[in-house]
């Protein structure tokens, strides 16, 4: 029945030369893998470097300034003779501008996303979406210009006593800047909702609005929320718009009509001047940077978690 497993010379011949080649082949493969791994480790190195630098310089800063003062003092004037080191004004500025931006961006962005994904014709969407994505690519300094020289004058016509530098204009422009971001990510999330789910709803006799609100939005909700959170992180870390248009005076206020500095604006302002390496002013921007980093990092992590959940949906 079975023939005896005699080894035929032919099969011997075909196999052994291959084995000889293995050693060299395996070595090359290993070397390539090692090089690629080094490249991947650069990401880790970067993060470590960021954390290390921020911590190192901040440590120098906190040798001079107590952590208590940093978090409780109400003034931030590290460069004055009479220096105060309370981060609160910068945080207030950051939060106010970000809040305004989100107030503008979230509703407009969401509505635009729903419109594009559920109401607009295929053609409209195919044209509008890339244009929106272009908006994401516009350099922020240009938006700063726009806020300062276009929006603020416009606002001043409505609110006469608005300052030339103010958080309102900066916030609004930042909001508009973020709209495409939210619209695009949220629309992606909604588009990822399978067509058969929509057909399921329409087949039940639902209208477009019912389908959009009752089926598509809930299905895409985690994607949409992730878009919001990433937008917050973006607003908090945004630099040039506020640096240009919101003013650079730390000011502990939540009044959008006033001018105030954000954390980012402060860093820019200091960096523009020629501060000596190692001075307390120099160190202060790292301390501010550390606060910024912690804030955005938390948002990013939340966003990441939400997004991961949404990936697992279908």
């Amino acid at each position, binding site marked *: 029945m079975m023939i005896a497993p005699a080894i035929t010379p032919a099969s011997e011949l075909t196999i052994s030369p291959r084995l000889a080649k293995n050693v060299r082949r395996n070595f090359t493969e290993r070397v390539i893998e090692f090089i690629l791994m080094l490249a991947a480790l650069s990401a880790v190195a970067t993060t470590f470097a960021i954390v290390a630098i921020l911590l190192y310089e901040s440590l120098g800063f906190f040798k001079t300034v107590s952590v208590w003062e940093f978090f409780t003092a109400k003034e931030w004037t590290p460069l004055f003779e009479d220096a105060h080191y309370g981060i609160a004004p910068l945080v207030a500025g950051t939060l106010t501008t970000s809040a305004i931006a989100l107030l503008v961006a979230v509703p407009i962005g969401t509505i635009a996303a729903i419109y594009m994904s559920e109401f607009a014709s295929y053609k409209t969407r195919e044209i509008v979406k890339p244009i929106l994505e272009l908006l994401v690519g516009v350099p922020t300094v240009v938006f700063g210009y726009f806020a300062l020289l276009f929006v603020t004058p416009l606002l001043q016509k409505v609110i006469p006593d608005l300052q030339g530098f103010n958080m309102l204009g900066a916030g609004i422009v930042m909001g508009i800047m973020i709209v495409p971001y939210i619209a695009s990510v949220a629309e992606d999330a909604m588009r990822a909702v399978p067509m058969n789910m929509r057909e399921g*709803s329409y087949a039940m006799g639902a209208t477009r609005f019912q389908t959009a609100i009752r089926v598509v939005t809930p299905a895409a909700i985690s994607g949409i929320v992730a878009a919001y959170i990433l937008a917050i992180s973006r607003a908090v870390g945004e630099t040039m718009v506020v640096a240009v248009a919101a003013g650079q005076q730390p000011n502990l206020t939540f009044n959008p009509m006033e001018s105030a500095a954000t954390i980012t604006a402060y860093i820019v302002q200091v960096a523009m001047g020629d501060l000596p390496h190692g001075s307390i002013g120099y160190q202060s921007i790292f301390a501010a940077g550390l606060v910024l980093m912690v804030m955005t990092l938390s948002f990013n992590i939340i966003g990441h978690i939400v997004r991961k959940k949404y990936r697992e949906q279908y």
Partner: protein
Amino acid sequence: MDQVSHVTKAESRNLNFYYSNGAHALKGINMPLYENKITALIGPSGCGKSTFLRCFNRMHDLYPGNRYDGQIVMHPDNTNILADGVDPIEVRMRISMVFQKPNPFPKSIYENVAYGLRVRGGKNKKVIDDKVEQALRGAALWDEVKDRLNDLAFNLSGGQQQRLCIARALATDPEIMLFDEPTSALDPIATASIEELMTELRNKLTILVVTHNMQQAARVSDYTAYMYLGDLVEFSKTDDIFIKPKDKRTEDYITGRIG
């Protein structure tokens, strides 16, 4: 066998359909759907089965540029559901559909079934509760899910999801139910349960089902229509189609001959 007289529930009259790219997908189809019967549509891929089925609840209206020509008349009210004045939403409220892949909404089991009622403005909790239970029973799912109506529908197995979709469609008391290859995404066990369900549903409503699986058509349907290249080649009792089809083309298709 059973020579009872058949009531026509709906019929397509000289129905033509054109996709937005101009493709003439249906070519003058005349076909009845008999009340409380299951009619199966078979034919090679791309022959227009789904296209025909989707005319019945005007799914094609969701995509711009598609065009109907001809009539689908529903009885007893004699409405041509393709007429311009007839709102597709109204049609879909009378004719429900179950899709190829189970497509429950990302909601609870309960809310999935209640959806059609809510869309119709249903508010009364008691009424909805009753309807939901009734529909789930009708879809042979009640016993399996009655203790976890608030679970997410995605947590059900594929076959259960499909039965949930059937329950969802049932909840609004449709007159006709359309199935587009309802078991092609399911394993044999789930397939068997859906097929049994369909033959039970026949007592309540009229069914039109597209299937690739000839044996499935043979198993579940009372009448079978064979379509080819957008034409209706033969419409006969299922028993006849698979054992002694009238048309040579049907015979060739069914026996796997080169047409």
